[in-house]
């Protein structure tokens, strides 16, 4: 079954890179440009896994993860954070609100896909 991935990033460049990388890996990709946009698309995308940026307008990655975990649609879907941030405090916070993993930008296409497959297989 094709893995459905919801990728959230406010940067068009990043979104297009993610689309290219994830589509090439055979995933069914839905893109969203910030947390609120992602929430809007959540039901339709029905993702098996979510990749999200942290710094975004309107609703940032933390807000988005909290909202997803508090909702019904994808409360149990693994969420990978993809960000340029590296701070330990931020990682702790992410862990506490239910993020599944943390990937630092810039990402390596192969590793990203491998990580997604690994996380999705759990």
């Amino acid at each position, binding site marked *: 079954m094709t893995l459905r991935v919801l990728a959230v990033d406010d940067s068009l460049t990043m979104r297009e890179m993610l689309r290219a990388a994830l589509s090439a890996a055979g995933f069914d990709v839905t893109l969203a440009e910030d947390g609120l946009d992602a929430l809007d698309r959540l039901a339709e995308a029905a993702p098996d896994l979510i990749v999200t940026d942290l710094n975004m307008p309107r609703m940032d990655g933390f807000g988005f993860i909290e909202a997803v975990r508090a909702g019904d649609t994808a409360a149990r879907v693994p969420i990978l954070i993809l960000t340029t941030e590296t701070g330990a405090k931020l990682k702790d916070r992410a862990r*506490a609100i239910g993020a599944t993993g943390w990937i630092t930008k810039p990402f390596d296409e192969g590793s990203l896909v491998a990580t997604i497959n690994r996380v999705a297989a759990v």
Partner: protein
Amino acid sequence: MAPPTDLRAIFFEEAEELLIALDAGLRRIESGDAGGETVNAVFRAVHSIKGGAAAFGFANLVGFAHSFESLLDDIRSGERVVDAPLVAALLDASYHLADMVNAERSETPLDPAVMQHAHEVLVATRDPASQRISIEVPFAAVPMDFVPLPLAGRIFDIDFAPHADAFAAGHEPSLVLRDLCALGKAQVVLDASALTADFDPAQCRLRWQIRLETDRDEADLRAVFDFIAGHCDLAIRDAVQHPSGDVSAPAAPPPLPASPVRAETPAPRSDVRPETRPEPRPETRPEAQAPRATIRVDVDRVDRLVNVAGELVIHHAMLAEAILRSGKRAETDVDRSLDQLKQLSRQIQDSVMAIRAQPVKPLFDRMHRILREAASVAGKQARLVIEGETTEVDRTIIERLADPLTHMIRNSVDHGIEKPAARRAAGKPETGVVTIQAAHRSGRVVITLSDDGGGIDRDRVRQVAINRGLIAPTADLSPSEVDALLFLPGFSTAAEVSALSGRGVGMDVLRSEITALGGRISIASQPGKGTALTISLPLTLAVMDGMVVEAAGQVLILPVSSIVETLRPDGSAGHRLGLADPVVELRGICLPVIDVGAALGFRDMPVDLAGRICVVVERDDKNTVALLVDAIHDQRQVVIKSLEDNYGHIPGIAAATVLGDGSVALILDPVELLPSRSLRKPAVPARTPIAAE
């Protein structure tokens, strides 16, 4: 991973937008709005540029953006108070960031010394004490930092072991288990291994392992055990840390929890938790950020559409002509269909042009930097005021306006705005104001750039023109004619004016830039009060409403936007004033008459006004003239085909178009159309209409 080139294009396109957002945000901060959302937006812009740049391996850019971001982060976190020097440093940093992006885009590296300096200044701004500067590249070689996080709050393994006296204390473990199961999907395994054959039913010897899949967090779980606190051993763990934990078949009595948590420990209060849980509430979305329903389309595709729509207009005209010739036009069905087709073609044309129309705001916003830099070089103080920035113009025009506007801004700062001391002496605020304004006026877009500087020094201009041999020393020129001398080729290239004009660009160059866009430029000045340059441009370079006229046997097009009215002069209306140029009297005003046929050299003057038609056109300088034509045929939309690429600029001719019968007609430029005798002195504009006695 080397990202493909189309992603590169997307990155640079996005970076440009981010730089605009950055600039706008910094200027909001400059004007005193250092609010959280503004600073956040600025931070995000830099952050996104950094993120994208990292993906493409633009190490210098990443390093600089990182330092920039750190400084912004200090502001965001309130560690740094925003003051004027800081804003100036942020603006400078944003300009350098823009330069770095452009350098990467054009693949022309910046001078490393310049980059080093900019970076040092930035780092020193953040930490004035810092002497050591290293252009660090924080992300150059970070491949993949994957930290697997447990599914905290998702799946818990819970060991629940009531003490032997639990029953005696009035506790019923099954109720606790029921509450726990209500929190999510639970697998409960009873461990009865402590039961012996002679157990005491009053003592609790049972324990449970529960794997709970829940959206609650650990505190919620602990809250369930609040009441049995003190009478049980409790351990709650994240299930992921025990991937081998097969809860359906615990091998042995479960190992003691690594860090047993005595339930006496007061559990976090459960009653306040739900309050703090964030809920996605659509109504809390900032209205200002309503989602945009937009798509990105390649410009080439739009341009193709514009061209095809233009062809459609031409072919509609051809069809109409063919039907007319066949004599079928009289049939009402044909006529009505043709009319509808005309309406639809027109709508398609308008819709297509609307796609390409863009507000002038991004273009105007770029002028802040130009002004700032020009003022800094000239040792002056100036600020830019923008008005009418939502005015929309065809993007092809916007693109080509950047250079002329830049020249105009520099000229205003160099020549218009006085030095602070001079301004003070003149009783003006030290900071000069340059205002750039856009508006739609009669089918054209009019951009005015005005300053509150000293105005044109007309004596000096006059003297320079005489020295350059441009005018006779005895020439009697009105103030506006003196001002217009500035546009003469050769005027501002004179050495003595160069010193005065700093790095400004000659006004003649400016004028040819504007003319090349089908635009016109005029200047107005008040001594001591300031100077205003006005440029007027067509809304589009693709199509226009034209009046089809005939003069000396030639079919010509006049732009409808410039036509005020038409009249058929009777014998008494025409006058000749001394020279051969006639005037026509219109409601007590005498208008100069330009015979189009003669002005373009199709025939010799003079012709008789009687039996011909005067088309009264308004020029940008508000002068009104009457163009004499032999007949008016039609009014229709025409597609503009530029002639300049092939024939250069011909005064009086704006472009050409293709008519319905396939023939080519010239489109006139009424402003440049001059009486045949005046062609040799184009710099001096025609005088205002003379009021009749």
